[in-house]
């Protein structure tokens, strides 16, 4: 979780881009993955995300994220592959039962769906790892005119993830010191063993949020119009990348309409 939300400081072309350009790229990748169900387009899109991580010089740090998403997609694939009955059957799990069989078309579609899932899930971590959340918020408020309070809520929820994880660690240690067991095999006792962790976490979180609200108010939050320290101008590279993305999207759509992709 912390890897997903953490910004990784690097000096790369991707990091220098305007947050809006990177947001456009992320939406572009997700949008195209929804538009096209073709396996090759989706595979291409996924590797373009990996490529961006490579250009951002953080492929090594992103690998655990990609790996996690891959296992999730694999789980999804196994689930999906039995529900598609079109095409030539390749394998039947229970002979005589037409429900549980794997077809060539099923494998093709399930793989495409798996890649779609990986594309959708992987572009956002890359975006968050290359863009500081505060920069993103400033851009959202200044350029896209999103009300600051909503943007602030978004930035705060992300900022609190590591804090809560740290709190959770402390709570686990405190309860383990009272001989509390977390590793029960019984599902029911395991479920209830969460209570001694969840309740203190909830209480300390509410206290923390309250403290933060007070300290924000003492520093003048919500008085009136805000100004910002850093400016986020659109550079020539930003224009080039944005126009390139739009043109590429158009050409893929037109190629698809003309039947070239199929």
């Amino acid at each position: 979780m912390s890897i997903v939300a953490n910004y990784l400081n690097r000096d790369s072309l991707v990091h220098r881009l305007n947050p809006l350009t990177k947001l456009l790229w992320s939406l572009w990748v997700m949008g195209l993955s929804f538009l096209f169900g073709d396996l090759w387009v989706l595979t291409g899109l996924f590797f373009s995300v990996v490529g961006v991580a490579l250009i951002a010089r953080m492929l090594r740090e992103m690998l655990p994220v990609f790996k996690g998403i891959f296992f999730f997609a694999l789980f999804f694939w196994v689930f999906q592959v039995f529900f598609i009955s079109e095409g030539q059957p390749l394998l039947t799990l229970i002979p005589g039962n037409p429900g549980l069989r794997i077809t060539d078309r099923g494998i093709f579609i399930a793989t495409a769906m798996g890649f779609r899932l990986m594309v959708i899930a992987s572009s956002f971590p890359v975006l968050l790892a290359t863009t500081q959340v505060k920069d993103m918020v400033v851009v959202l408020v200044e350029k896209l005119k999103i009300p600051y309070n909503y943007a602030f809520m978004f930035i705060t929820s992300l900022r609190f993830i590591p804090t809560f994880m740290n709190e959770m660690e402390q709570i686990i240690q405190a309860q383990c010191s009272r001989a509390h067991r977390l590793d029960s095999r019984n599902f029911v006792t395991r479920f209830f063993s969460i209570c001694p962790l969840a309740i203190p976490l909830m209480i300390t979180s509410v206290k923390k949020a309250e403290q933060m609200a007070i300290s924000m108010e003492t520093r003048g939050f919500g008085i009136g119009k805000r100004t910002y320290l850093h400016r986020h101008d659109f550079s020539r590279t930003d224009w080039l990348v944005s126009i390139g993305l739009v043109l590429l999207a158009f050409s893929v759509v037109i190629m698809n309409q003309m039947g070239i992709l199929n």
Partner: protein
Amino acid sequence: MIQVEELTFAYPNGLPVLENLSFEIKSGEFVALIGQNGAGKTTLLKQFNGLLKPTRGMVRIDGMDTRKSTTGLLAQKVGFLFQNPDHQIFLPTVAQEIGFGPANLGCSREEIDKRVREAAVQVGLEPYLNDNPLFLSKGQRQRVAFASLLSMRPQVMVLDEPTTGQDYREGIEIMEMVKALHRQGHTIIFVTHDMELVARYAERVIVLSQGRILMDDTCRRVFYQPDVLRRTNLFPSQIPCLVQRFDRYQEEFGMPLSVEEFYKAITDSGGEEYVHCS
């Protein structure tokens, strides 16, 4: 009771926080662990109940190797009081909160009730047994946390800054409870930044600096070596500081730690007249 042999510990992907520590804490000792922030005090404390395990070397509690044991098992021998009581309080009454530990140890209902009552008496929480712990004051919540450890009847009590965030009276009250436990034969290890508390309660002081032991001696000898203490930006409690100003008389005064001892030292060295005059 506690044997630490060539203990080295590093957090994952980090530099060693503790380096090659070896010492022994005998049953019934009252030990203060002092040092700057980041010296490794809390990390060392967490080794004593297996919350952290040695990277190299060994920690043995009553002959039990912490690497081969779990925190749950060690909890019967070592009670660990955390700085923030709110990290553990989750039950609706003080009695249930104190009884959580013994219930985890598999005690019978009668046994749990007995232990809860005993622990509540020891920390003075008897009138609050049916109250919600969340609505008590910080000092009282710390007592709830303390009682919830006592009810598990550990031989060793490990206290991580037990008086932080409390006023002088509450702090002293907590330490007096700890002292009473010590008199009953418990081994006490505590971390604090308050040198007055160290002078008042600790028999032995271990000074940690950058993950190593800088000094390990009686409180008296540690506080009368200011040069070594200063290397860790620590200052002795007030009386040793004052006595060390009297260069010429230091031999006559000896090494007093408390006001009473200092008064006696002055009167014994023929300064009675002066004390009375002032």
